[in-house]
């Protein structure tokens, strides 16, 4: 069992409260997932087309200042970073392959949890309230976020096995359920050159969808592909640079509830995670249908306005 939550803000005046609104949602899902927790926050973009690289030192302490010095030497530019508990976010030029290669070779204990112009991912073992407090979720700002509380059923308990998974720039995914054909799909993806950080089934889903997106499929089409390819039980919440999506398998046995007001769209495994949101009394509340893609994006809202 796991708990998942997502919050997509339509009203930019709420951006400063994103973390504050997401924290009680995540904590309310503790009983569904008390062993680990994590969240993906889509926050402010760095200047000069730089990217944010979120690094986790969960599996070993890291000397961040010396990493910064090494990266400055490698990339021949000044490097900024900030630290949140055992994670650090480095603001670096978009030389992704070079950075990945360098970190894998020189800092093999570090795990890159996210890369993107907006995305930051923080995840670790422990109760959701503790994880949220450690990383300071309450004060985080941004336009949308997804979160996960984990009760592991199919692979180990560690930061690397925790959700959300980032499998492409600004692409993140959380999952409640279990995939039955993840070994086969992982093998196929490996043959096509995709690399994996863990043996977790959800990582396979995240990498599969990102792989389809990389082939030029739209998010909607990539999720339709996932319905055909991924076998098992799932409710996914997905974040992208501009959007937020929810997908359930065709049996839809894993729970999900959606709520929408003029100010926000929210999803959770259970309604009680939404109960503290402002305006919930007037929200439209419904259960998403099986095998149906629900998605929202700021761009689409701007076009419609």
């Amino acid at each position, binding site marked *: 069992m796991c708990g998942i939550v997502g919050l997509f803000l339509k009203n930019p005046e709420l951006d400063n409260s994103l973390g504050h609104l997401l924290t009680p949602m995540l904590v309310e899902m503790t009983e569904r997932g008390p062993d680990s927790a994590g969240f993906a926050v889509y926050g402010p973009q760095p200047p000069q087309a730089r990217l944010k690289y979120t690094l986790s030192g969960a599996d070993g302490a890291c000397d961040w200042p010396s990493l910064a010095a090494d990266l400055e030497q490698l990339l021949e530019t000044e490097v900024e970073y900030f630290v949140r508990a055992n994670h650090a976010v480095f603001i670096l030029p978009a030389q992704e392959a070079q950075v990945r290669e360098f970190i894998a070779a020189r800092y093999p204990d570090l795990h890159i949890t996210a890369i993107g112009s907006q995305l930051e991912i923080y995840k670790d073992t422990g109760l959701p309230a503790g994880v949220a407090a450690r990383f300071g979720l309450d004060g985080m700002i941004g336009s949308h976020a997804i979160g996960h509380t984990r009760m592991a059923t199919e692979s180990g308990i560690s930061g690397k096995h925790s959700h959300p998974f980032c499998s492409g720039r600004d692409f993140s995914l959380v999952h409640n359920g279990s995939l039955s054909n993840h070994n086969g799909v992982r093998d196929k993806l490996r043959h096509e050159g995709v690399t994996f950080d863990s043996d977790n089934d959800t990582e396979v889903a995240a990498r599969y969808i990102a792989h389809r997106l990389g082939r030029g499929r739209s998010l909607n089409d990539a999720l339709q592909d996932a319905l055909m390819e991924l076998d098992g039980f799932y409710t996914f919440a997905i974040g992208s640079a501009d959007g937020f999506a929810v997908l359930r398998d065709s049996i*839809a046995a894993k*729970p999900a*509830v959606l709520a929408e007001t003029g100010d926000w769209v929210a999803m959770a495994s*259970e*309604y*009680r*995670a*939404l*109960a*503290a949101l402002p305006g919930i009394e007037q929200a439209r*509340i*419904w*259960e998403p*249908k*099986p095998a149906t893609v629900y998605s929202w994006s700021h761009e689409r809202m701007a076009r419609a306005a």
Partner: protein
Amino acid sequence: MRTIDLDTSSVRELNAGLHGAGAAPEEWQVLHPHGKHALAVGLEAAHKVSIDGHAGYYCGGMNKEADITVKGQCGKGLGENIMSGTIRVEGNAAEAVGASGHGGLIVIEGDASSRCGISMKGVDIVVKGSVGHMSGFMAQAGNLVVCGDADDDLGDSIYEARIYVRGKTGALGADCVEKEMTPEHVTALNQILKRAGMACGAAAFRRYGSARKLYNFDIDNAENY
């Protein structure tokens, strides 16, 4: 009337209070439920319980005699294994309404989600709106009445429950077929609609049930089903 505020009392206190209230009917009001699970479960007396807000999973489960109203939406497994009494939801209900319910009446004034009436064994369920996929799955006895539409796989693997739908149906589930609406069914349906407080009559409803190809049905044992 007794009032319990779930901002200051626990769900356990609520249920213990309801269980200890004795057999004489009392009125109870539950404030600030915030989608909490297992509200007003296992009641065994004809209390009248009003839940003023949204309820979580398994609300009113195993109910006997009591009359429970949820003034909001409801999570999954509403009235699971209900034996008798009435549960009414003024909003929508999530999946598995009345799962394996043996008797009594459940009324959903909004929509119900998937697997409404799964494995029902005698309960009557009336949904003013529509129901989701796989409703009436393995339903054994009782009546599932849908005033709106029913999504795909209605009545999959159904036994001897009766399903009435006023609106459209998606693809019917395995072994579920449309059946003739006889005067006897019209009378029975009208009675259920009246008990549920629905304004519509039986006229526009169609009836669905088992083709009896999937299980060993023997007409001589019909009264035992």
